[in-house]
């Protein structure tokens, strides 16, 4: 049976070059980078090389990069660390309605610690209006955090415009760029932001490693206390092999970004264009043009996401969904709800996220297996039955 991985939004495979460069650090180069002897030298140098590679990818200075254990840690560090560092100036933060839970829940924790939180709404495509961000900025606002692109629906946000406005107001702007770094060009100086999160498993690097970029001069309180690793900003013995892998993945991403974007966009657009012609009552979610090159997200009416996932899985196709049943919290995607999609329709959400290994044949296979799956679930669905009856009655 054909096996097609279309869940690159969740994790990407390691590129062979990345695996190659990691291996020695799982083997003879096992030393602690903080060790002041020969065994520490190679790992220490390797980390600094990786730092340069990551900095290069996002147009930053190497010393501004802090390695973390995940994108989620980067977001926790950014939201809590930046807000706490400035709490003498004020205790109000602003984030968008569609942030990843690692940003949203960090902001909610700040609320428990006495901060106030304002949420910026999005439009039906999931776009944040810069004017709405400004509306929420008060005299005591110390942090704004808006993601660069949404991982569920692919919408890319106008960060440059938002940054211009936050700069005018003198407020620190952090952006969760976990879905964009390594996939589309991200240049921190061009964007004009103050802090940025990224993660390795999004662009063919390892899991369990990420980074936080903080512009020189911006104060941040460390999340992890202990030794003086990462310039005293993030304690803990470094995950050397993963960091080395992250650096290599960054280097490869920079070198082949244009080609990757072209490849992914072709596949994405093929599915976005053809699926709605094969299946009735399906909605494309996210912005039609300003979206991540590999993200094709839909809501399929009258049926539920996990059931779709399971049937697709039985046909060898791996994808993800934002339905309540697929979320541990049993709540439908907050992103889709914030975009004004009904709870009912949000249950039928499905995301195909393409990767470097995917081909046009993969798209065609999906186009072949999806319609019978949708039909089958609709035949079982009381919602579809009701719809058929009312549309017949309406004639």
């Amino acid at each position, binding site marked *: 049976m054909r096996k097609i991985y279309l869940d690159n939004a969740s994790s990407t495979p390691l590129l062979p070059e990345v695996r190659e460069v990691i291996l020695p650090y799982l083997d003879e180069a096992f030393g602690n980078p903080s060790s002041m002897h020969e065994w520490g030298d190679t790992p220490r140098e390797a980390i600094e090389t990786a730092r340069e590679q990551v900095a290069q990818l996002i147009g930053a200075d190497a010393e501004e990069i802090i390695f973390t254990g995940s994108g989620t840690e980067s977001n926790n560090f950014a939201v809590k660390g930046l807000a706490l560092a400035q709490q003498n100036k004020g205790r109000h933060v602003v984030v968008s309605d569609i942030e990843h839970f690692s940003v949203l829940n960090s902001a909610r924790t700040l609320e428990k610690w006495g901060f106030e939180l304002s949420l910026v709404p999005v439009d039906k495509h999931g776009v944040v209006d810069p004017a709405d961000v400004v509306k929420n900025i008060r005299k005591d606002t110390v942090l704004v955090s808006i993601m660069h692109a949404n991982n569920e629906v692919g919408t890319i946000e106008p960060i440059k415009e938002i940054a211009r406005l936050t700069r005018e107001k003198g407020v620190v702007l952090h952006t969760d760029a976990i879905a964009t770094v390594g996939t589309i060009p991200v240049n921190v100086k061009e964007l004009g932001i103050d802090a940025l999160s990224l993660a390795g498993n999004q662009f063919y690097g390892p899991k369990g490693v990420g980074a936080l970029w903080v512009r020189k001069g911006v104060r941040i309180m460390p999340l992890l206390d202990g030794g003086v690793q990462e310039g005293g900003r993030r304690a803990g013995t470094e995950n050397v092999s993963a960091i080395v892998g992250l650096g290599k993945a960054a280097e490869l991403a920079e070198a082949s970004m244009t080609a990757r974007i072209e490849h992914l966009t072709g596949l994405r657009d093929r599915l976005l264009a053809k699926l709605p012609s094969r299946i009735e009552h399906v909605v494309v979610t996210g912005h039609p043009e300003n979206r991540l090159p590999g993200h094709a997200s839909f809501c399929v009416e*009258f*049926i*539920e*996401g*996990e*059931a779709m*996932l*399971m049937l697709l*899985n*039985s046909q060898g196709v791996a994808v993800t969904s934002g*339905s*309540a*049943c*697929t979320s*541990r919290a*049993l709540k*439908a995607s907050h992103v889709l709800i914030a975009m004004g999609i009904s*709870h*009912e329709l949000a*249950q039928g959400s499905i995301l195909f996220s393409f990767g470097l290994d995917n081909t046009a044949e993969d798209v065609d296979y999906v186009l072949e297996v999806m319609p019978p799956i949708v039909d089958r679930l609709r*035949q*079982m*669905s*009381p*919602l579809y*039955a009701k719809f058929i009856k009312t549309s017949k009655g309406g004639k």
Partner: protein
Amino acid sequence: MPVYSEKVMEHFMNPRNVGEIENPDGVGEEGNPVCGDMMTFYIKVKDDRLEDIKFKTFGCGAAIAVSSIVSEMAMGKTLDEALKITPRSVADELEGLPKNKYHCSNLGAQALHKAIKNYQSKKKKGGGKS
């Protein structure tokens, strides 16, 4: 994908008794699309036994499997026996459900019971068949 037992997978991939009954003796609906699970049970009753059961379900793998197994468990039983079907017995029959899917077994049992109660209340009003 949550870790589903083989029995759940079997009932999900090959659900029994999907459909509707024309002129059902009782109908029971439980859940709603906002929550993500909705089941409608249709029953035909003869001599106080469930002669036929059909269902339609909007929901996840567990929801579909639960509906299917409930219809199987209740088919041919007396109304009293069917009313004794509990979420627990449904989950057991399916050889276990993941913790966060137990509510699906609640829905299945409740929807069936609603259908039976619907039939019984119609009968009391003198409008039902026996």
